[in-house]
């Protein structure tokens, strides 16, 4: 196959060199075959598709700035007498880790900037990953054929949390050390092996002298290596399967509508990388983050009030705070439910459910089709309800992680806040589910109305023969495509206990369960009108709009049309604006 890169007498010398390079690589790797297919690859556009991009770009910034930090940071818990330039700590014994962090912050030019960029981009990374995941969840982008990529994503979220936590502990300041102390308490609570596990992790009795260097190797090698590997897999899958798209005119389940990689998508995505990078740098120049010098060095018998982990760990801390103080001693062994449930069991269940969700939903609804067109959240009310329920659950735990701050800020009793949050944690998520589901169904009904009758314009008209009508407007092409994209998901049929010959159905119970689950998912969905009904409805709306049209001319002729919500009048009522003004004048 010949090269696709243009090479001719008129080509610019740089282009010529580029073509030469492409040929050189192609002869060794066959890369032009790949390029010929992929340079024109189409990517759909939507603001929410940029969330994953933000995650990727901020991760690149994390890697770049992290590499820079490793050049100056010393992962050692050996004690040194601090003699750096930060006056309040001069003459204090502190760990080399903390001392080198202070040096980076105060004595190395650009050090503080890079440290703050590292922290800001890490926060943005975790946030973007989380919000990106919500986007994928609420739009049903995890459905077949993208379940594997959902699993990779769940792995990435977990690793992002691990990366954040291991990094948070490295400065060895009082705040991060307190976080480690809590981790040690959690490790010790694990039945059977916990005590030994804590000793192995910390290299002996807490806090030991090992933990910082061990966290360091996890933080700069193990975790980022895994993230990088999974990100690569994630992107390859997106590339192979092509991106999902939102419904719109000309968009179907079998095509991708958007912009080609070269040049538009490349320019936009490449430009966006620099925007994200630039904003992180600006933010780090302007806004202070994690000022570890204020917290002081870590010692295991000191703590500050109002300690807060980074936001993505806050929910676990909140769970620890809200849990009732249950502990049992069975046959001489201690089981600390007060720690196990919030710190191990609940996160374990949540992440398992998160990973299993695509498979659970597909099984419950009997959905085996490929989905490339995204669901509007309202069209999958149960899924949307579950998602909102999870957000509310998370939000309450996160708030609980700051219950002491809430108490001091609003001068409330910490006990009352904790009790309220405990009750809320049980009551509010199901309530959020119900409200969300009902809201989705209402939106579906409104969509159906729009399809059947067009928009309600809110203008009541009186026709010449006395009939009152409300003017409707037909939907435009885009609205029609978006609203009309609603799929009708059938409820799985209820199985028979036995077939015609009276033979017992051996799968009756499983099939009944699936019938019930799929009813739970889709029973309440508002049916989509048929194509003929939509056509008729829109046609009717057009007719009504046509009826209204001459009235507008009438209105324009300085006649009252909005004073009473329409051209409703009765004998004796003013007809023109001038008449009404005169009447009001006479009244006063």
């Amino acid at each position, binding site marked *: 196959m010949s090269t696709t890169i243009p090479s001719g007498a008129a080509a610019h010398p740089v282009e010529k060199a580029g073509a030469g390079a492409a040929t050189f690589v192609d002869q060794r790797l066959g890369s032009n075959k790949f390029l010929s297919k992929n340079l024109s690859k189409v990517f759909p556009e939507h603001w929410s598709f940029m969330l994953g991009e933000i995650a990727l770009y901020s991760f690149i910034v994390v890697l770049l700035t992290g590499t820079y930090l490793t050049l100056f940071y010393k992962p050692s818990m050996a004690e040194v007498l601090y003699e750096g330039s930060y006056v309040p700590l001069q003459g204090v014994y502190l760990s080399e880790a903390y001392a080198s962090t202070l040096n980076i912050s105060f004595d190395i030019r650009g050090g503080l900037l890079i440290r703050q960029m590292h922290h800001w981009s890490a926060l943005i990374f975790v946030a973007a990953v989380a919000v990106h995941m919500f986007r994928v969840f609420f739009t049903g982008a995890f459905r077949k054929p993208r379940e594997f990529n959902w699993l990779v994503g769940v792995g990435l979220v977990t690793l992002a949390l691990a990366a954040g936590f291991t990094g948070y502990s490295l400065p060895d300041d009082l705040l991060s050390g307190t976080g480690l102390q809590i981790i040690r308490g959690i490790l010790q609570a694990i039945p059977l*092996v916990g005590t030994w596990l804590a000793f192995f992790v910390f290299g002996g*009795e807490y806090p030991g002298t090992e933990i910082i260097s061990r966290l360091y190797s996890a933080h700069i090698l193990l975790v980022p290596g895994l993230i990088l590997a999974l990100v690569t897999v994630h992107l390859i899958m997106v590339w192979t399967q*092509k991106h999902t798209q939102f419904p719109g005119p000309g968009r179907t389940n079998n095509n991708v509508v958007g912009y080609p990689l070269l040049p538009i998508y490349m320019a936009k995505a490449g430009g966006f990388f620099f925007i994200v990078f630039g904003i992180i740098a600006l933010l780090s*120049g302007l806004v202070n983050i994690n000022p570890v010098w204020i917290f002081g060095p870590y010692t295991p018998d000191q*703590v500050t009030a109002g300690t807060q982990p980074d936001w993505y760990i806050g929910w676990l801390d909140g769970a620890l705070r809200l849990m009732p103080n249950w*502990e049992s001693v069975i046959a001489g062994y201690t089981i600390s439910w*007060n720690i196990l449930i919030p710190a191990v069991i609940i996160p374990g269940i949540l992440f398992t459910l998160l990973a299993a969700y695509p498979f659970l939903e597909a099984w419950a609804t009997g959905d085996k089709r490929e989905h490339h067109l995204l669901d509007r959240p309202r069209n999958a009310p149960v899924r949307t309800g579950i998602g909102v329920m999870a957000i509310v659950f998370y939000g309450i735990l996160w708030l609980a992680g700051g219950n002491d701050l809430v108490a001091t800020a609003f001068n409330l009793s910490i006990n009352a806040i904790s009790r309220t949050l405990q009750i809320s944690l049980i009551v509010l998520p199901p309530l959020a589910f119900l409200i969300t589901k009902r809201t989705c169904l209402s939106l579906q009904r409104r969509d159906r109305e729009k399809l059947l009758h067009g928009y309600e314009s809110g203008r009541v008209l009186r026709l010449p023969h006395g009939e009152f009508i409300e003017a409707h407007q037909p939907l435009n092409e885009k609205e029609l495509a978006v609203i009309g994209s609603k799929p009708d998901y059938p409820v799985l049929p209820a199985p028979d206990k036995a077939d015609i010959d009276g033979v017992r159905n051996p799968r009756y119970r499983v099939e009944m369960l699936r019938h019930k689950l799929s009813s739970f998912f889709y029973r309440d969905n508002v049916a989509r009108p048929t194509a003929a009904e939509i056509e008729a409805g829109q046609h009717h709306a057009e007719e009504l709009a046509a009826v209204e049209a001459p009235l507008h001319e009438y209105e324009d002729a300085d006649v009252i049309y909005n004073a009473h919500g329409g051209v409703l009048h009765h004998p004796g009522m003013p007809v023109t604006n001038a008449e009404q003004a005169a009447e009001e004048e006479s009244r006063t």
Partner: protein
Amino acid sequence: MSSRSDKDLLPVNPEPGDPKPGYLPVANIEHKPRVTDTDPKAARRAERQVAGMFLLSMFFVVLFVVAYVSIDVYATVYVPVLGVVGASNLALGLTFGAAIFFIGAGAIQWAKKLMPDVEVVQERHEMTSAKDETDEAAATYERGKEESGFARYPIIRRTLLGALALFPIPLVVMLRDLWQSPAGANPAEILSRTEWREGMRIVPDIGHDTGDGVEGMVPAEIPVGGLVSALPYAIKETKDDPAANFRERGKAAIILVRMDPTEIRSQQGEGWDYQGILAYSKICTHVGCPIALYEHRTHHLLCPCHQSTFDLADSGNVIFGPAARRMPQLPIGVDEEGFLVARSDFQEPVGPSFWERG
């Protein structure tokens, strides 16, 4: 620049009937031309804007280098809203950020104003492989299975699986020395005792090794209603051993509170106080945060981490929060010289619960 319509954006493979067209414009979307599509002046202006932003980026790189070289790393500057901030960090952040940002802004402006804004369509192909490809893969697998004899030689198969299952064991075994335990010591025993013993003096917690001049505390140093953090005298021997120093602080740290003896409703042992001075472990029994938030009127001790609350006038019992166990009390007295001392070690393990604790 001439106006651009859908027709100008040619498909990569224009031949009709080509099974894999590159991409085609979406037929039924009405495309409104942009100003830059119709007005050559506007297009020139956009071109200048893009180039201007790239120039700005270069300019900020120069400024960055100037700021790096010329601004003292310790200099501070007052900025409204931000307050007094490091001048170097501010200047470097702003110039570096702007240099990067303008590359992005220029690229996006370029894409939005000058590159085609016509959406195009590409067909998808089902992920499932074609039947003949699947069959071929299956046949190749069968042939491989046959040729290797994987099915025919069960002994090879089983021993291979066995070998693969065992080979990671050394990797796990070698993790054993993550903690080199002292001979005969096990974690549960280590966690169950502290440096406190009969006659061990109590020294105030005032820094790294509590200093050379400090030999102990006398009862008069603790006012009624007050709280003092304290450590065993042994901490003074850990001056050059940070690991031991931290270990003791993490386990043996105590708080001393003094109340009117009539206010003490109960103690963990008869007469464990000294003239109303009570010694409790400082390490929370929940997950191990050090506690020193004390409300002297109610005698409540509140953990700043998870808000477990203990009543120090009532045996240190839990009255609120996630902690399941009371704070262990240390029996104290005074020695011949009048210094406060421990009368024994704690009678139960301090700090968070663990499996073998019972």
